[in-house]
């Protein structure tokens, strides 16, 4: 019986010839991630193990990104806890302020996750790395603690949904519109416990940044992971983003430090959806669920108080490029706050060199150092009572960005930037673009 791409990676990770949906397996992990919210809980749990220490100091990534740079004393204590653990255990991939970025933009950029890897992270958006052909999934702090100590995690092998993407998206239509369209179609539990496997000739038109955005939000459909085939574009990305130890291993052995898996022709899928990307319009998710989607021509007249452009979903260079193209020579609407957050230091620097940051500041936006900040209502842009925000982030739950009566509208960088100019939810067409 054929296996899906995710099942093949899991079979390899469990040391098995084959696996089938529903099998319970113990998999060996290539990377275990935790952040400043979930990491300290894991670290406290690790004290309870009879086994001491970590399984492999090169296969753990610790990223203080959520409430860091430290937003208050408690956050500072949590970051300190992680820092001390990282030093005590000589963790290679601990990213201090100055090197850190939003974890799911940072890890692929730094090449510490790659095609064929099995990755768990104590953060639900760990599913992002499916964009480069890894099986990666979010877990809680106890799973991450076991991962850090033993290098293992238990999984129920998932069945899968297949999304055949065809055609070329129209200008300004990006990965965010595609994934919001899909979540609107199947619902926030439409992929519950399942893999979302993307395929089809439309993938060639999607940049790596588009794919990261799509895989990132698999969890918003309840998915266990989202995964893309590894094509030439993905290989080019992987080979130009290799960690120092992977590069050294490659030069020493000549063996490529990644493995490309493909779904079997006869793999079984619970459902197959065909989506013609050329028909998609800019899509916005209304409060308070990512499945409450409307196309831009159906949003009506919704005035806003804030725009956030950033996060693990849409804080990458191409997202900033799109926003800069729209904001170039234009001004932020009067009374609106616009917050731009490049996801990593590298993206920050690249955006600076490309002139995007100047464009944002001249338009009247602010630019922040990398942080998850406002996405989860941490800091750097909390909403007051009844305020509305257009955000390129991933969740619009009640109270997610601040007051329980505030509202979040999820959208692409293009819609966020156009809305920043008009002061209401708008697509680039409203600016004549």
């Amino acid at each position: 019986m054929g296996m899906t791409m995710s099942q093949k990676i899991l079979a390899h990770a469990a040391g098995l010839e084959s696996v089938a949906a529903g099998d319970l397996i113990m998999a060996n992990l290539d990377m275990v991630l935790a952040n400043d919210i979930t990491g300290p809980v894991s670290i406290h749990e690790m004290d309870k193990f009879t086994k001491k220490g970590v399984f492999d100091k090169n296969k753990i990534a610790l990223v203080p990104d959520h409430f860091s740079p430290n937003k208050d004393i408690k956050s500072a204590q949590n970051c300190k806890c992680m820092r001390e653990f990282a030093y005590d255990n000589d963790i290679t991939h601990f990213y201090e302020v100055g090197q850190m970025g939003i974890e799911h933009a940072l890890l692929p950029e730094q090449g510490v996750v790659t095609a064929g890897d099995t990755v768990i992270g104590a953060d639900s958006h760990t599913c992002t790395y499916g964009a480069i052909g890894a099986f990666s999934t979010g877990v809680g702090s106890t799973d991450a603690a076991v991962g850090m100590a033993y290098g293992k995690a238990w999984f129920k092998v998932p069945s899968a949904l297949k999304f055949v993407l065809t055609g070329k998206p129209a200008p300004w239509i990006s990965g965010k519109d595609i994934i919001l369209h899909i979540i609107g179609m199947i619902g926030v539990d439409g992929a519950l416990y399942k893999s979302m496997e993307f395929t089809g000739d439309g993938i060639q038109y999607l940049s790596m940044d588009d794919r990261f955005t799509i895989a990132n939000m698999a969890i918003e459909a309840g998915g266990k992971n989202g995964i893309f085939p590894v094509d030439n574009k993905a290989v080019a990305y992987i080979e130009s983003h290799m960690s120092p130890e992977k590069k050294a291993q490659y030069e020493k052995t000549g063996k490529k430090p990644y493995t490309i898996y493909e779904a079997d022709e006869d793999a079984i899928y619970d459902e197959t959806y065909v989506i013609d990307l050329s028909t998609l319009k800019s899509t916005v998710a209304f409060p308070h669920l990512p499945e409450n989607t409307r196309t831009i021509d159906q949003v009506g007249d919704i005035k806003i108080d804030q725009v956030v452009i950033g996060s693990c979903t849409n804080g990458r260079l191409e997202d900033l490029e799109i926003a800069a193209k729209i904001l170039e020579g234009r001004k932020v609407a009067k009374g609106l706050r616009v917050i731009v957050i490049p996801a990593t230091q590298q993206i920050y620097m690249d955006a600076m060199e490309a002139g995007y940051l100047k464009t944002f500041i001249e338009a009247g936006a602010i630019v922040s150092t990398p942080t998850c900040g406002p996405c989860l209502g941490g800091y750097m842009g909390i909403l007051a009572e009844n305020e509305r925000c257009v955000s390129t982030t991933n969740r619009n739950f009640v109270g997610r960005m601040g007051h329980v009566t505030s509202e979040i509208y999820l959208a692409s960088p293009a819609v966020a930037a156009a809305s920043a100019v008009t002061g209401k939810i708008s697509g680039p067409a409203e600016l004549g673009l």
Partner: protein
Amino acid sequence: MKACGHVFKYGDNVDTDVIIPARHLATTDAKGLAQHCMEDIDPDFVNKVQPGDIIVARKNFGCGSSREHAPMAIKASGVSCVIAETFARIFYRNAINIGLPIIECREASEDIEAGDEIEIDFDSGIIYNKTKDTSYKGQAFPPFMQELIGAGGLINYMNQQK
């Protein structure tokens, strides 16, 4: 093992941001988290909840963030079990890993109302609604998960492995 208590009832897609809002996540202490449990969806919950009480919700309970703080807060608030039609997968793992009993049961999720008095027999999976004098059968866990639960969570389970 049995649990008995009164029901707090919620709808579909109760997310971990409303179970424990991120503004409290700098706290890692379970009792501290419990003081804010469910506050954005049910501000009265923390004042009313009694040891042994039961949360019953509809589908996709615990969706969103992977924060283990959510089942930690529920457990530390005294809740003895969460019943739902379905659970989001990370919440499901976290609950089992930390020893918060959960049961998937569509009939119970549909029929049980707020304030009903419920008795749960974890060995048989039978949920008995004393208020309505009705019983429901919850879905049994696969053997591996029963082992995890029996060990008292994932950490004890791993400590017992050779």
